């Protein structure tokens, strides 16, 4: 018998590492319950970020939550941070086993 699975949204935010604490704080306040963060390096329209030293670091924040919460977080990030910081976001539909955790 297949395991029962439940639909959720995976929101991935890639941003300057200096924003990590603020992003986690805001996402939690907007209803996200689970997140992971890791350092990444790469390039976007704003240029190359190699992560070789403090001011050059980039963080990838993964948030698992309901679609409405993901939308609210993304909208907030766009409005508050995207104007002056290097930020990119994408959404993916995912399935989880224990929906109350997210």
């Amino acid at each position, binding site marked *: 018998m297949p395991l029962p699975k439940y639909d959720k949204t995976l929101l991935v935010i890639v941003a300057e590492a200096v924003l990590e604490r603020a992003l986690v704080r805001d996402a939690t306040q907007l209803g996200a319950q689970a997140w992971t963060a890791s350092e990444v390096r790469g390039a976007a329209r704003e240029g190359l970020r190699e992560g*070789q*030293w403090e001011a050059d670091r980039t963080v990838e924040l993964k948030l698992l939550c309901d679609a409405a919460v993901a939308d609210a977080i993304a909208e907030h990030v766009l409005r508050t*941070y995207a104007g002056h910081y290097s930020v990119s976001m994408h959404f993916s539909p995912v399935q989880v086993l224990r929906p109350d955790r997210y």
Partner: protein
Amino acid sequence: MIDVVVFFFLLGVFARLVKSDLRLPEALYETLSIYLLLAIGLKGGLELSRQPIALLAPQVLACVALGFAIPFMLYPLLRALRLVQADAGALAAHYGSVSVVTFAVASAALAREGIAHEPHAALWVAVMEAPGLVAGILLARWGAAGRDAGPSRWGELMHDVLFGKSVLLLLGGLLIGAVAGDAGMAPIKAVFIDPFKGVLALFLLELGLVAGARLAEVKRFGAAVLVVGVGVPPVLALLGAATGVMLGLSTGGVALLATLAASASYIAAPTAMRIAVPEANAALSITTALGVTFPFNLVVGIPLYIELARRWT
């Protein structure tokens, strides 16, 4: 004669310019920077316990005042160079704050030339980190209140500056060194005192790689970056040296205070400015501070400031 550690920096710059695949692991960079901050603090702390506190108070006050005043002096020049308010304030903050590694290289140069300096000089570095940042933020945001209510909160920012790794490790090291004294430090001396210069050399290799990457950006920003990056440090060094002379510091002490005044922060300041003045052009500040001023101070500035201290004391 250029100190041997500077050659490691130049090697890093060269590696970057020839697009070498040389890259130090991030964890090593982090470890080396923690080591250097702690070691500088411990070394200063050893001597701190022998100093009467009353003697240190004027020095601490003068360092705070110097760090706070530098951005206010620099700001009109930056505005005259047509930098917008946010950029001018943020860049001024980088010069108001200090570079620990420039200080370490100056200390190594003084040791090599046999010039003594106040052994508690690490305390000056610790207290000069924050005032310039506050001054720069005030300049960048003056009259612009409410423009960016988002992430910029003074409480959060001051927490990050005062409890960030630079100030925390420097002051922590100073305190541990002062409490432990010579006898307490003896068992860890082999790790924190003796290999210091070798570790500094390795760290400078990494910084050479980072600074080499910024050199390519200099062209993008034009003459203003060069004018500020090369022209401003010697002038600030005069101010630092004058302060040192007024405080009655030794020749080495005057040279170190001149170096601190001339140095630009590339660790605390970029992070603080990204939080407090997000509209400022971070690449402009970093290119000037790390791509131009840092190499200039290492290769040309420090020998110049030592000579200045010799003549003035």
